[in-house]
């Protein structure tokens, strides 16, 4: 409990957005918090029960009408603004809704993944987790530079220049609303997690912070 209180005392860390992007999208923000990685990789029964509750509260018709709700709509619009088709590259909440319908429920896939999913479904705001020890400095959003790659080693993907990425002080850590670099995602050895989210125009700040704290609480819950 004291851990929760400590976490709640801290405000989310505000990330940076490249100046040219800030001019185009003035309300684009990156927020992050750091929490201890969970000791066990499997979700406790309480988290699984919460996923089941969310599954039963979620219906097929909601998946269709979701695009008219303010927060999913805001992410859909932002997807359009950055050249993505939200009906092909689904927004995170719509992807979760589709998965719920296809699989018949939100399936538990691990402690961290479940915490991210809970935060996403409860608030509509997507959150991602990185290994905090492998991230240098605050996170931000910028366009990829020529010759940059996502990840390290032979399996790293080339990034076309101009591709919007989430980056730390050194390198891209993931494509914006896309895949994360394999070398930065949490593993068994991860001690600290950097949970981050992306706020776009039309999404109230309170929902963004709520998503971060919902995720942190799900990870801190030791029951």
């Amino acid at each position, binding site marked *: 409990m004291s851990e929760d209180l400590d976490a709640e005392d801290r405000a989310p860390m505000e990330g940076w957005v490249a100046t040219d992007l800030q001019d185009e999208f003035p309300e684009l923000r990156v927020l992050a918090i750091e929490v201890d990685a969970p000791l066990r990789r499997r979700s406790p029964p309480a988290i699984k029960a919460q996923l089941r509750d969310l599954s039963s509260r979620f219906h097929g018709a909601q998946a269709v009408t979701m695009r008219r709700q303010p927060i999913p*709509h805001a992410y859909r*619009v932002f997807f359009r*603004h*950055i050249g993505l088709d939200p*009906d*092909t590259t689904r927004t995170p909440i719509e992807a979760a809704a589709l998965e719920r319908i296809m699989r018949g429920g939100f399936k538990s896939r691990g402690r961290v993944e479940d915490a991210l999913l809970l935060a996403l479904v409860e608030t509509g705001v997507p959150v991602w987790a990185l290994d905090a020890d492998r991230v240098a400095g605050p996170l931000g959003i910028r*366009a990829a530079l020529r010759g940059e790659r996502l990840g390290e080693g032979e399996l790293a993907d080339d990034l*076309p220049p101009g591709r919007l990425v989430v980056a730390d002080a050194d390198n891209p850590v993931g494509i914006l609303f896309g895949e994360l670099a394999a070398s930065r995602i949490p593993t068994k050895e991860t001690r600290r997690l950097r949970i981050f989210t992306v706020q776009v125009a039309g999404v109230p700040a309170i929902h963004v912070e709520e998503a971060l704290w919902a995720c942190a609480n799900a990870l801190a819950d030791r029951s």
Partner: protein
Amino acid sequence: MVVIDELHEHLAEARGGVAAPAGAPDREAGHRARRDLRLQVRRLERELADTLIAAFPRAGVDVAVPAHGGPRVLGLAELEQLRDDLAEKLRRARRVVEERGEEEARNRELLERMLRHPERYRFATLPNRDLGESGCGVWQVRPRLGIIGMLAGWWHVKLSSGCPLAPWRPLPGPLPRSIPGRWESAVASGRCPTLPGGLPWPRPRRPNAGARSRARRARRRPPRRSGRPCRSPRS
């Protein structure tokens, strides 16, 4: 529709403003034009979503506007193209919804007439989905008491309920059942029947399926005590 017209007017103004006589638009004008286009895209996306939801549960209202490439900052031309595509898709979707609405209104009138004078619409059928309603129900004009009603002119309208079962289709040929893995390959090659969703029928059981497990259970079962019946005979 008015909104689209407004958008076209706005586009014309924006184009006029951007295409300044001096040549290339300056940074501020370009920025302003992109911001205006993003607002239009936001509005069109909202209206497209409204149209799709208004059409629900009807299928076939296409609202997809494909995009190419990954996340990036779109230039003026790309934003214009996106806005035009969205406007065109919205126009088409609205036309489809409008046409279907008219058709459904006609069908509802037809249903009223069928209910009022069933003898004029003998054996007519009207699915619920043609009325804009969900479910698999079908309104049918049928004779009461079968042939008697047909002869006597007793007609009435019935609403069937429930979705029909998947239609049975004959097997295209003998199914390979003996060799493991052949069923999967038969499914993959389309030689076995599939359900409407493309899913294969359940794998057929072998004639002697379960014989081995039955034999195993029989071996585990404790032997009966000889000379003593399982149940006490009633006298």
